């Protein structure tokens, strides 16, 4: 039963952190290259434009949900299960979500990278 709770938490972490990453990436693409914006209009303009993007706040909220799910997951499951399982699967989930929602061109090179890093994270936790 405890195992089931831990996996439910892992699922929630993956879902929330992927949603958060996608929302933040989407918001920042709308804001535009912050380096250029900073040079042309200053730091306050960057901050103002980021905060004026509603999806940015949603992304932050999703990240907060992911963080608290991690805390709950850690209280039910082992550190050595929850952290590597959620981190490695998040890499793969992000590649899928970025392709569907952000229309990023996830080339074979990027799939391999996501899978290699995901597998590496699991091996490092063993």
């Amino acid at each position, binding site marked *: 039963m405890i195992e089931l709770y831990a996996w439910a938490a892992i699922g929630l972490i993956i879902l929330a952190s992927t949603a958060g*990453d*996608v929302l*933040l*990436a989407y*918001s*920042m*693409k*709308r*804001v*535009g*290259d*912050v*380096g*250029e*914006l900073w040079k*042309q209009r200053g730091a306050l303009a960057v901050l103002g434009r*980021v905060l004026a993007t509603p999806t940015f706040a949603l992304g932050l909220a999703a990240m907060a949900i992911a963080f608290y799910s991690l805390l709950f997951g850690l209280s039910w499951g082992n550190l050595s299960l929850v952290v590597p399982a959620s981190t490695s699967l998040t*890499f793969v989930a*992000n*590649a899928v979500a*970025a*392709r569907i929602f*952000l*229309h*990023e*061109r*996830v*080339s074979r*090179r*990027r799939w*391999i*990278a*996501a*899978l*290699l*890093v995901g*597998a*590496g*994270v*699991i*091996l*490092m*936790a*063993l």
Partner: protein
Amino acid sequence: MTFQKYLVLAGITVFATAGDALLARGMKELGGVSLHHLSGLLLAILNPSVAGGILLLIAFFACYVSALSWADLTYVLPATSSGYVFVALTAHFAFHEVISPTRWLGIALITAGVGFVAAGPSLTPVPRIDSRDPLSHEVKS
């Protein structure tokens, strides 16, 4: 990709790793925080390690969203995962922790993955349709 942009990517890795390490050290100094004394979590900010860790994690977040403004998510995430490798190598060479063969294999896989994605393009070249803002049309590599 300019040198400055590589610096931002390095910043994500370094700030996240150092921030987590400081935060972990600070929380160990404080001891366990029980759910019945949540005020302990608020007071944790007064611990110098915790405060330093939070500042570094804010720096990490600034670098992270900045990178997302000019690179794809599927580029930024794998490209900055070398933090796991840095932590393991620091533990090995600075603190003489033993790294098992499985962990060395994990380090090799992550390094290969980072190299794989970093050698490719950083941004999907799609013309963005957003007439409000001339800046967002720029596609730089």
